[in-house]
């Protein structure tokens, strides 16, 4: 029913998107991107990539629709609780030595990661002296993150994660349940800057002490991963911290020698 996209189709499409909308998907991991496009073709009812390309080039709305398929907003709060535990136990003591903190949540998606970090910082007494940058390329996701409303049916799962991550209070302390959603405390976001920022095209905007970029680089190819790591390295202060997703690592990148593992299993690194 749908014409299988070829590599040429994909590269043409990504090039077109780049030229028209400056969203750079050209260095995204090929296989994953292909699957996303195929999925988008079905959902957007396009016959083939050329069709899709024509549509998105002529309508920004269509492109926004496609963008929702290209970016993968799958995340949860306190995902990999041990990661958060490690941050709490291994990184926070260092962070406490800084009079003020800047933290960058790169690819924050719909904000679960961000709220998790904010809660952690709050409990560690660091939130008020922290400035958090939450960035993503998808404006819809950012909007969701800004709202801070998450589906209620997942909160139980989050609660378990939170407890495993070394949470100090009751998780319900941080949200108000209403209808089908859980609205998280606005004060968590007081020091958060939401920004549209692309790791593929944009550059460093601030010196930071901790960068969390989890499950973002798995969708990138090697070139783009290198670029992203370069940005993080540039952004991090001397001896700053970098947290990656459980399947990501810097071991084989050109930056392997610029970081030392702090908690290797949880992919927490420290700049050398």
């Amino acid at each position, binding site marked *: 029913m749908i014409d299988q996209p070829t590599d040429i189709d994909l590269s043409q499409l990504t090039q077109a998107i780049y030229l028209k909308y400056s969203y750079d998907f050209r260095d995204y991991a090929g296989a994953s991107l292909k*699957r996303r496009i195929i999925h988008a073709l079905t959902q957007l009812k396009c016959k083939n990539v050329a069709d899709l390309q024509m549509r998105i080039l002529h309508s920004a709305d269509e492109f926004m629709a496609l963008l929702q398929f290209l970016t993968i907003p*799958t995340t949860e709060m306190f995902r990999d609780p041990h990661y958060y535990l490690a941050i709490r136990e291994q990184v926070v003591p260092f962070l406490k030595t800084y009079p003020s903190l800047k933290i960058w949540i790169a690819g924050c998606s719909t904000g679960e990661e961000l709220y998790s970090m904010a809660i952690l910082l709050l409990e560690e007494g660091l939130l008020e002296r922290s400035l958090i940058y939450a960035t993503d390329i998808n404006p819809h996701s950012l909007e969701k993150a800004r709202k801070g409303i998450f589906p209620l049916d997942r909160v139980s799962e989050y609660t378990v994660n939170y407890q495993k991550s070394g949470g100090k209070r009751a998780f319900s302390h941080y949200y108000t349940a209403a209808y089908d959603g859980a609205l998280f405390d606005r004060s968590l976001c007081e020091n958060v800057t939401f920004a549209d920022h692309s790791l593929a095209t944009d550059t460093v905007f601030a010196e930071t002490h901790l960068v969390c970029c989890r*499950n973002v680089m*798995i969708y990138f190819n090697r070139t783009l991963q290198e670029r992203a790591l370069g940005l993080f390295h540039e952004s991090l202060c*001397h001896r700053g911290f970098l947290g990656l997703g459980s399947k990501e*690592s810097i*071991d084989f990148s050109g930056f392997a020698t610029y970081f030392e593992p702090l908690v290797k299993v949880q992919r927490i690194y420290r700049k050398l």
Partner: protein
Amino acid sequence: MQNTAAVDQIEFRRILSRNIISPLAVGVVSALLFVIIIFNLLSAMKWVEHTVEVISEANELAKLAVDMQTGMRGYLLTGEDDFLTPYRLAKSKFGKTVASLKELAQDNPTQVERLGRIEEINSAWQTYAQTVIDMRRNNGEYLELVRARGLREFEMLRSEFEEFVAVEQKLLHDRNAAVRQTTTFAVATFLGASIFLTGLLSFFGRRDLLRLSSTFSKNLDELHQHTELLEQQAWQRAGQARLAEFTMGKTALPLLGQTILDFLALYIDVAVAAMYVRSETGSLRRIATYGVGKSTDEQIFDGNESLVGQAAVSSRVIHVEHLPDHYIAASFGLKINSGLGQTAPSNLVLLPILNNGKPNGVVELGFLRTPTTQELNFLELIAANIGGTVAAAVSSLRLQDAFEETQQLNEELQTQQEELRVSNEELEEQSRILEESQAILENQKAELEQTNEKLTEQAVILDQKNTALNIVQVQLEERAHDLQRASKYKTEFLANMSHELRTPLNSTMILAKLLSENAKGNLDEEQVQFAQSIYSSGNDLLDLINDILDISKVEAGKLELAPAHVTVQSVIDRMNTTFAPLAAQKSLQFLTQINASAPATLFTDEQRLEQILKNLLSNAIKFTENGFVKLSAGTDASGMITFAVSDSGIGIRRDQHAIIFEAFQQADGSINRRYGGTGLGLSISRDLANLLGGSVEVHSEVGKGSTFTLLIPADMPINERKTNPFAAIEPFLPALPVEINPVQTGAPHTSPEPFFTDDRSSTQQASRSVLVVEDDAEFARILFDLSHELGYRCLVAQNAVDALQIATEYLPDAILLDIGLPGVSGMSVLQKLKSNPATRHIPVHVVSAADRSETALQLGAIGYAIKPTTRDRLKQVFEKLEGKFSQKLKRVLLVEDDEIQRNSVVKLIGGDDVDIKAVAFGEEAIELLKTTIFDCMIIDLKLPDMQGHELLERMSSEAICSFPPVIVYTGRNLTADEENALLKYSRSIIIKGARSPERLLDEVTLFLHQVESKLSSERRTMLKAVRGRDRILEGRRVLLVDDDVRNIFALTGALEQKGAVVEVGRNGFEAINKLNEIADIDIVLMDIMMPGMDGLEAMRRIRADKRFQKLPIIAITAKAMKDDQDQCLTAGASDYLAKPIDIDRLYSLLRVWMPNLERL
């Protein structure tokens, strides 16, 4: 017509040119002729004039001759000189005149000749005249002479003149005649030719003009006709256009028909008309009439009924003329009706209307007059238009019907859609759920891919590490081997030495014994005492030598064991016999005990067992001043036989339990002096116990005595004899640097015996150390002594390999390097030191006999001294080295009021190269800053005398040496304002907490040591990675199938360079054979175009074999077309590579396709 006109135009042009150009040409020709005639006449006239001139000149000459004659005669007659005047005048002019005449008559040689004669005659005459005149003047007899020749010459002259003139006259006459003749002829010819040509031209011109005029009139006629035709066409077109205008937008058939008929009536005076349209049934139905009365009702014709039907069937206009009245009325009822009456038309036209060439109706027209041809043509012309319009109307009608039908269907659909929407919503809900799970799936997939990639890379790295490990392993083995050999040499040496020593010692002892016996009685008591001392010392020495021999035997594995069944009781008894007296001597109680658990006998080497027990017992007695020494036999929990020797002696400190078993070690250095002994006993005991398959354990407490327990198996395991004492030592060998020394790999390196012991193992704590690399022992000693003198710990290396190893291991502060080392040159040592991040900071000074200072300095040596050198010069070298490495001493100022904190920070960051000044007060700090330059400053914000920021402000305003980097180390949280204020002076603010010391250390390190070797270490890592990638080809077997020798050569070279083993096949057959013959081919490079069997076929066949279905095959194709590449892939290639082959691309393809590295 056009054609004729064109021809005529060319003709016209031709005529025109003929009639204009011909007369013009004739005119020009006659003018030319005329000019020629006139020129001819002119030249003739010139010649006539010329002749006339010659004649007149000749006459002049003649006159001159006469004048001379006359003058002479006058003089002769009168004798008066006056008569001579004309003579002289003429005489002078004569010559000139003759000359000019000659010139004029040049054209005629006869005349010139004649003139020459005249001149001669004249001169003769003149001679004569002069003679006569002279004679007359002298009154000579001149008359005679006159008579004799007086007239002769003159007559000759005259006759010549006459002839001359006559000739000229004749010439004149001839010329005149010729001119006249020519002129007459020319005029006559000219007149004749003119008349003839004029006639000819007139004749042809008239003919042409007549033709022209006739053509012109014909053209005019044609033009007229054409205009008429155009007018007709215009009329028809206008008609068509108006018809179209009329019918536009009219879709209902009756209205359309009416409109058409109205138009026709208007346009071509139709009196009465009807229109029939073919209905769906095929019959013609009347749909409109014009000027027809009521009586004519609806009319339908089927097939070819009536003329109307006939017209439709035959698609032809039917024109019926001069109809009788009744016929029309009866047949068609097409009567012209008006308010006043009715009449029948006289002419009838039946016009079939056509749509796409097919008739779909008929228009019947009645005229009161005969329609013109033009009108009939017009009708035919518009037949198609009308047909088209009608057809459109018909189909529009149908469309409307269909539309209505659709509308109805649509409504039905809407209801169905409503139903669908409901189910759709359900589906959407499901799809949302599906999508969510798909996103999760995608995430997992991407993660998996990532993991996969990581794993692959990890595998590669692991592989590299494995290889490196293997190499290290091999090196370790070599080292162990070397060590083993060295040790063997050592023990052999010791063994030999002991024997050599014993011989002289033996005689010494014997002689000393003899002396001490004082048989002759000639020694006094003191001398005897001396001799006894010599004997007892000799005995001690012998014991020592025996011990040494034993231990070396054990170590060399030379100790022969003679296991036998031994009775425990007998062993204990023998010990009792031996040691009871010794114990008694020291007033010690000597106890023996055999526990019930002890077996009666055991299988072991009795001699060695007793040796161990003796050692232990003699030690026990030696170190026990009072109390007891006890030997007990038993069996422990694990079934080992135990012989425990306990005493109540001085005991051994716990931390020395291990040391006492080392050779030449006793628990305390001072013990040696108090108790004597070699310190070898326990060492030997342990080794022997090992040999017997057991061990020696110690339990001891200072002051409470010790218990040494010998544990041996009841049955000595013969095959477990440890002949290689180094097996246990191996793991403790220092790890070699992973970097492989290429020089080393050739032949295994064996360290020569050092000249002397350097400070490697000395415990002496010198603040600085120097490595001396020197193969000349004497000079090495000089440097060694000098460095000691200057307070250095000195390490000595004799060759390059040792030098590098010591440098990496001990990291000396400075290195003195000789260039001329055995084997590897000092230069390469220098290079290696400088390229190793760990050693590059160590200053190296070269001291060498060879002058290669420039290279050395370029490689990074700090100086170069040439041997032979002086002591002072060497001291300077050391100073230079010291100056260099002591620069690294960093000064840190710590301002902290809390003493504990201060000390802890000092401890934290203190080190050999850091000089810390710790003060408690801000004022103190400022004072220090005024005198000293600090590399870094650490301040607490809360000081007793001022606040931290106050101190910083003071520092910036007061005169201090330099403003060092400041690290603020504070216990309290800062507000944003405070932080901003501090950030002016300090980039690092650390808030004290659990991890703050670490961070402090980080920051201090950052300021103090901008780690020099960082970059190069990174680069090294990178290089390693690259090397690692290349290694993928190492040892791999590549089958290269190609028929081109050059290609084979080039590719083989490239592949072998990377360590691959290349097999070559010249065509498909060979390739398959090779694959069958050689089992472990990793990858195939397949050329496509080959003789015999080509690459495609070969790949198909290879793939057909089950064994080779996963074998990577890279096709090499010279064609770059997509098709060819597809072909390759279809035929079974894993990938393809286009010629000309880019070697880098080949490597990367090989890397990609090389099967994973199980075999490496």
